[in-house]
């Protein structure tokens, strides 16, 4: 955050001509504003996500979805939040009051705190910890405590069943999701989210090998890495209780699961936390497997290069000085690349919800312990061997990565073609109609 504050300060000074003597006050205000911004961002993202989810659900089911509040219904989530605030806050008489009240906070804090180490662009990150990846896996586990606590404190059968199921699911899938990130740590040699992103780069001399291109993403490092991504994605679906793993709150069997007894904004806190969690899932996918915010072809200067010749980025032969408006546009562009990849991952998460049926609890446990766990270990050791035989910098490894990236592009095209085919066969129009 210090880094971010000093960056914002230099922006204010060079771009807006702010006087330097004001710095301590501005910095103090900025620190608070950034912390507040991250918290509010989590809530607003959850709202926007819900809007998109409902609109996409509507599209998949050949109906319209929310379109009344604000342009195209975009402000629906604000109306929902206001409604929840104005609702009566009911605490069942049989509930354990202190625990019942504490549980939503744990959920909300667990998710919001996870946002702190997820970078949005080169500088926009609350705290670039050297144990960032471990931190985000650990802090999001707090939600398990919240889930169990609410299930227990509600003293309702639905809530207790939901809480127990949810806890069993969350702790089980934590293991494959943690282990599937490990190859990225092996390759980058760091647990810091920013350093993992930075390590997904080839030689900085040429624009076609510099960072940000698909063939520098870890997902295309080797076939096993692709498997690791799939494992991580499945595990994150389960962690976020998204379909096909939404057993904790399966409406048809458990009413609403662990939050059955909650109403008003306490329920809103669960709702926000659950949907904000998709950002953590998507952002981790993008950071670890899809090259994060790196701009294709732009070589981010190393710390030594900055010390020697100043912060200058080279992009297709152009040198862009990292200061003033140049820095602003570089940050904005890297954020754009990040958000586009994020949107892709999040869209798949939403689409899966309306595509696949829920699994049974025994299937859920079998998938985790009997398939994902051994598979993750197998991938881990195969990747170790791969790293020793084909080091990252070697030309052969680059060729393999390019072939993998092409295969990935073919897969993506097949997916798009299939989606188009399905929309067509449902007798619906495809728009924009030029897609494949």
């Amino acid at each position: 955050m210090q880094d971010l504050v000093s960056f914002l300060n230099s922006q204010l000074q060079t771009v807006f001509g702010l006087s330097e003597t004001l710095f301590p006050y501005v910095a103090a205000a900025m620190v608070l504003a950034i912390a507040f911004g991250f918290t509010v961002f989590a809530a607003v993202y959850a709202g926007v996500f819900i809007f998109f989810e409902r609109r996409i659900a509507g599209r998949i089911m050949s109906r319209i979805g929310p379109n009344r509040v604000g342009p195209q219904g975009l402000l629906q989530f604000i109306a929902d939040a206001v409604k929840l605030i104005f609702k009566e806050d009911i605490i069942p008489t049989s509930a354990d009051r202190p625990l019942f009240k504490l549980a939503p906070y744990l959920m909300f804090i667990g998710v919001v705190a996870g946002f702190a180490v997820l970078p949005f662009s080169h500088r926009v990150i609350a705290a670039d910890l050297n144990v960032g990846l471990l931190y985000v896996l650990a802090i999001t586990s707090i939600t398990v405590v919240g889930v169990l606590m609410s299930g227990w404190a509600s003293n309702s059968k639905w809530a207790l069943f939901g809480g127990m199921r949810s806890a069993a699911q969350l702790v089980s899938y934590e293991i494959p999701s943690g282990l599937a990130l490990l190859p990225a740590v092996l390759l980058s040699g760091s647990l810091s989210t920013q350093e993992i992103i930075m390590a997904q780069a080839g030689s900085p001399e040429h624009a076609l090998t510099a960072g940000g291109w698909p063939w520098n993403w870890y997902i295309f490092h080797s076939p096993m890495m692709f498997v690791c991504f799939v494992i991580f994605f499945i595990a994150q679906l389960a962690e976020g209780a998204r379909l096909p793993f939404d057993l904790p709150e399966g409406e048809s069997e458990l009413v609403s699961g662990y939050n059955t007894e909650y109403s008003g904004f306490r329920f809103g806190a669960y709702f926000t936390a659950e949907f904000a969690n998709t950002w953590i899932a998507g952002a981790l996918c993008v950071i670890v497997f899809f090259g994060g915010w790196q701009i294709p072809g732009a070589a981010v200067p190393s710390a030594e290069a900055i010390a020697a010749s100043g912060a200058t980025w080279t992009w297709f032969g152009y040198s862009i000085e990292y200061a003033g408006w140049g820095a602003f546009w570089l940050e904005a562009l890297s954020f754009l690349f990040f958000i586009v990849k994020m949107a892709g991952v999040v869209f798949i998460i939403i689409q899966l919800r309306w595509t696949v049926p829920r699994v049974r609890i025994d299937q859920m446990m079998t998938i985790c312990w009997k398939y994902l766990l051994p598979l993750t270990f197998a991938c881990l050791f195969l990747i170790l061997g791969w790293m020793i035989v084909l080091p990252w910098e070697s030309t052969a490894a680059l060729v393999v990565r390019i072939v993998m990236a092409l295969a990935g592009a073919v897969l993506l095209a097949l997916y798009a073609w299939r989606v188009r085919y399905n929309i067509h066969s449902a007798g619906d129009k495809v728009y924009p109609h030029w897609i494949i």
Partner: protein
Amino acid sequence: MLQSHLPLFLVLVVALGLGVFILVVSSLVGPKRPSAVKADAFECGNPPSGYARERFGVKFYLVAILFLVFDIEAVFIYPWAIVFSDSTRGAGTLSPLLVVVEMVVFVGILMIGLAYAWRKGALEWGPEHGKGLETTTAGH
């Protein structure tokens, strides 16, 4: 250390503050019309029968134990990953092969543990397995 972790505490405090603030506002503006029926636990419209905290399936307990073993092991592998990538860069004193062999032995022992749990039926959740464990039916 403190400087890099300070923002985290700040985010935590602000998140907590925001949550408290919204709930206080909600309790100020929300209606308060309590009734005995409303404050009952939800049981599909019927008056709640019995006590919710009955005996629970032992399988959840088994999963918790398995989770402890494997999660601690996962946390242990993370520092090892750093040691390994240091050794491939020649930064450490260990050879990469030795580091890998050590982890293979460690994970091998763990896999034996997984196989044992598997054979013992700790991973079976189907209806035909562990009858009487998953419900609170009396008599088992």
